[in-house]
């Protein structure tokens, strides 16, 4: 199967996941389906509790869904043995939100970035070192950073290190969970540009999780909007933002600074009525 970008790399079908039982149970995922093609950036947009991170955890095999399937590179991931998972995971890597806490603060940058190479026994010590230097260069860090430790670097530099580590085993897909939201404005732009250029040079796919529609607009070829564990709207990002259909998407857009400018006001009578409750209001 292919779309405008290329062959389908990740396909998620009908994911369902409920935490707990009975009255206190929470439905984290409710019939969630989406796909990512090679070379494509797909956005999962939503707020805390919408299920976007849970969906990512299921894809990465860190959480098991009650229902539905995840196919990575055409391969169904449920029922994979640990050994088979190790091979699948090479093609799908992750970068998290907090620049510092995802890195082992007692390790040097060299050790952090080479850890996937060691885990997969790729190359000897010398070739690993050369590969780390190459990866650092790709993310815009000089060789002198090899011996740094996380606390000796800024948030943006730590996030570059995390990206370099994710790229070490040449994955096809990188999952980025709010990976730019903790960065300073000027540094966020640097990292967004970096991701775009890495994508075109390595033909990478990104699944980018964010609450920021401006980031979704800049990065995402396609966007899925999540609310209360469901995908409530999806489409080509530009079209979706130009003419949002679901009230939740509208309220998200209106809440984004400058968002009011973007909403089509030509047909005010057709505008959806906002009925989205604030979480915890009841």
């Amino acid at each position, binding site marked *: 199967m292919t779309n405008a970008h290329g062959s389908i790399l990740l396909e998620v079908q009908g994911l369902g996941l409920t935490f707990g039982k009975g009255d206190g149970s929470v439905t984290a995922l409710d019939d969630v389906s989406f796909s990512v093609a090679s070379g494509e950036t797909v956005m999962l947009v939503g707020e805390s509790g919408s299920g976007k991170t849970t969906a990512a955890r299921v894809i990465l095999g860190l959480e098991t869904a009650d229902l539905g399937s995840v196919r990575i590179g055409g391969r169904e991931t449920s029922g994979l043995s640990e050994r088979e998972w190790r091979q699948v995971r090479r093609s799908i890597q992750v970068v998290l939100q907090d620049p510092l806490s995802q890195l082992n603060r007692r390790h040097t940058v060299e050790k952090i970035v080479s850890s996937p190479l060691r885990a997969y026994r790729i190359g000897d010590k010398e070739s690993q070192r050369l590969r780390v230097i190459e990866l650092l260069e790709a993310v815009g860090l000089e060789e002198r950073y090899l011996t740094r430790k996380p606390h000796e670097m800024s948030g943006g530099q730590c996030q570059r290190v995390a990206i370099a580590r994710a790229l070490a085993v040449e994955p096809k897909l990188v999952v980025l969970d709010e990976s730019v939201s903790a960065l300073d404005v000027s540094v966020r732009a640097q990292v967004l540009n970096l991701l775009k250029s890495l994508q075109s040079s390595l033909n990478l796919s990104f699944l980018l999780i964010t609450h920021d529609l401006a980031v979704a607009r800049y990065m995402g070829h396609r966007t899925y909007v999540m609310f209360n564990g469901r995908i409530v709207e999806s489409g080509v990002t530009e079209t979706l933002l130009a003419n949002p259909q679901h009230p939740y998407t509208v309220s*998200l857009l209106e809440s984004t600074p400058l968002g009011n400018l973007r909403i089509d006001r030509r047909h005010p009578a057709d505008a959806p009525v906002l009925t989205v409750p604030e*979480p915890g209001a009841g």
Partner: protein
Amino acid sequence: MNTSTSDPLLSVRDLQIGVPLDHGETMAVRGVSFDLQPGARLGLVGESGSGKSLTALALMRMLPPSVRIRAGEVMLNGRDLMTLTPRQMCEVRGSEIAMIYQNPMAALNPVLTIGDQLVEGLRIHSSMSRSTARKRAVELLGDVGIPDPGNRMESHPYQLSGGMRQRVVIAMALSCEPSVIIADEPTTALDVTTQARILALLRQLVSSHGTAVILISHDLEVAAEFCDEIQVMYAGRIVERSPSADLFANPRHPYTKALLESSCVLTTDLTRPIPVIPGQPPQPGSFPAGCAFQARCTQARETCIDHDPVLEWDHGRAVACYFPHLEPSELAGSVAGGRPLDD
């Protein structure tokens, strides 16, 4: 320094704050001066290390013990807060100047009900009876949009969502009707739609009470939507102050301009990389000599390396730069802008 004629409510002069290094101390806030008019909403915007939060905490006299105010004057309602005894400062905090923090969970006591916390604050600063204070607390919770406020008095902070907790913190900040509220990234930890609701609420409440607000934010767009005026900080200094709309339409300081261009917003040009500011925001201890922005500035010349520009006022706007961006119309009539200092 401002051209405004009315007396400022809050007046900060030459505030200098030292933070500890491994050996010795370095100045993280280096001579910050500004005025705040009654009822005004002022944004204090900067990236990490700019000194915006230290400035805010200094006004509250709530800096960590290792961080020292080395110089400066903070006049509020005719008194210099920097010279007050700790006991006098306790009376001022809450009743004259209050703060809303980024993380509402940390600002609330987890073992007390929100009702008890509100009542405590009210009774410390007034002679209200317990029952009057409780009535007032319920009113305040209603004012900040908490449904069923009477019953919510008995809730503990963990039983509320982040947005509801921040509403409680706002109710506390407003409870003794201070003349200034400092809001330090009050919505950064909240969801986008909640953020918009909380800022709209805060805006409505401070307008009806005539409370002045200093909003600390890393986000120029958020600050511009909320504030009348914005002050941009960089490397422990104010580098530009301007009415919000003017700042966006015509940023004068090269840093402000670059920061605006590098923000990923809904109007960012999709056909090219986002223009970035090279390098990192400088951290205390490594602020460059001369103009602190010169190493990252595309306009920098020799003067900028050798000399440190001061904040200069011109027609209600201030900028600390030898080569500020001016509109062609401004260039024609201005003699101050763009002229390097002779020495």
